[in-house]
């Protein structure tokens, strides 16, 4: 039980996928303008990560059995694309406003390096199935946490009087670096 807790906490805080490993930056900057869309995006990414991990694990075992591990990337991308497509179809029907708010960033989860990153990291670290799922869930939560935190920061940026040259993207990037800096405080928590 303790191991699972450590995997989860280190995924969320210590090795935060966005703020410490710099994966999945594009939706992090793209959909963090509003709290609502960032929570929606976080939910979609959690779903894709957990389902993709649940599927890539047996798929990798299959590849291992056939001794074709070198096809890992293609197989994983196929599985991830499948789940992103599923999320897209379901979200279009169930939550049309969120679907519109996320726009192009929803299909972009397919090539979100955080998703492929977590599935490959599970294999590389030699996690069991249960640990893999825990890690995927933790990473998804970490992504959501980063987005939600940053949407709060961006709401403050929108209200503040910043120099003309910094307005827009530069101010956002500077703020992102400072939020990332704050996560450095967690480093070395479990080791």
């Amino acid at each position, binding site marked *: 039980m303790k191991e699972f807790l450590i995997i989860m906490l280190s995924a969320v805080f210590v090795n935060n996928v966005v703020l410490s490993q710099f994966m999945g930056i594009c939706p992090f900057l793209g959909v963090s303008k509003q709290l609502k869309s960032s929570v929606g995006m976080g939910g979609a990414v959690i779903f894709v990560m957990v389902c993709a991990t649940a599927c890539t694990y047996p*798929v990798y075992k*299959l*590849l291992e059995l*056939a001794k*074709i591990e070198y*096809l890992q990337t*293609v*197989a994983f991308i*196929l*599985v991830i*694309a*499948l789940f992103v*497509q*599923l999320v897209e*179809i*379901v979200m*279009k*029907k*169930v939550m*049309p406003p969120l679907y*519109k708010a996320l726009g192009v960033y929803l299909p972009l989860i397919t090539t979100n390096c955080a998703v492929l990153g977590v599935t490959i990291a599970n294999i590389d670290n030699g996690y069991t199935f249960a640990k893999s799922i825990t890690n995927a869930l933790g990473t998804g939560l970490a992504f959501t946490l980063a987005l939600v935190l940053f949407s709060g920061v961006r709401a403050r940026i929108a*209200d*503040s*009087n910043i120099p003309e040259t910094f307005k827009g993207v530069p101010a956002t990037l500077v703020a992102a670096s400072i939020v990332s800096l704050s996560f450095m405080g967690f480093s070395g928590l479990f080791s």
Partner: protein
Amino acid sequence: MEYLIPIGLFAGLGILAGVLLTVVSKAFAVKTDERIEAAQEALPQVNCGACGFSGCNDYAEAVVTKGAECNLCKPGGAESAAKLAEIMGVEAQEAEPMTAFVRCAGDCNVTRHKYDFDGIQSCAACNRFYNGSKTCTSGCMGYGDCVKVCPQGAISIVDRIAVIDPEKCIGCGLCAKECPNDLIAVRRKSQKVEVICSSGDMGRLTREICSNGCIGCKMCERKCPKQAITVINNHAVIDYDKCINCGICVDTCRVHAVKRI
């Protein structure tokens, strides 16, 4: 065999994914009315919300499914109204182009500041401190809350008051909702006469703090042939429905607070 296994494996995975996606897309199919898409294309897609719906697509849906009026789109004007009416198969009604106007001319050349405002740069915030930083408590504060909401970029701050470019303005009225002092009027584009002051102070005080102010002398009210201009709360207000743009009030005004534009 060496080649067949990977090919077979990927074919299997692909077929599995294909079947799953087909089943789900059938189960979660979204029915769309062709007319809704046509209506969406007829609208200018600026999403200003002047029609009373939350954006162009929402309005398009309301026209088709809930029977909303066809002429509510202000940016699209007569053109959009005609297209929507054609899609719905009804007679088009007239929609006159509207534009917004700021009823204040108290720029930094004619008014002074009571204090330096260093807080959040917005009119709403500044207004909380003694009704704004300017000596006039009902004028334009010039922090640009209207500029921020304008979907067309039609508003600019010139000499620390808001000025609306009638060429760019689509008359959506978002700025009018935002202005804490209610200075912005949305009226017909053909309107040629305007009162450039909304001061609620007594005449003498108004002139002391702003040389463009209306003193509420009621001269225009007496001379107007249509009773379209009246003094309310110490400044003249034009009833745009009655006004015929004759300009008698402009010639009558001794302090030049009524102007031809």
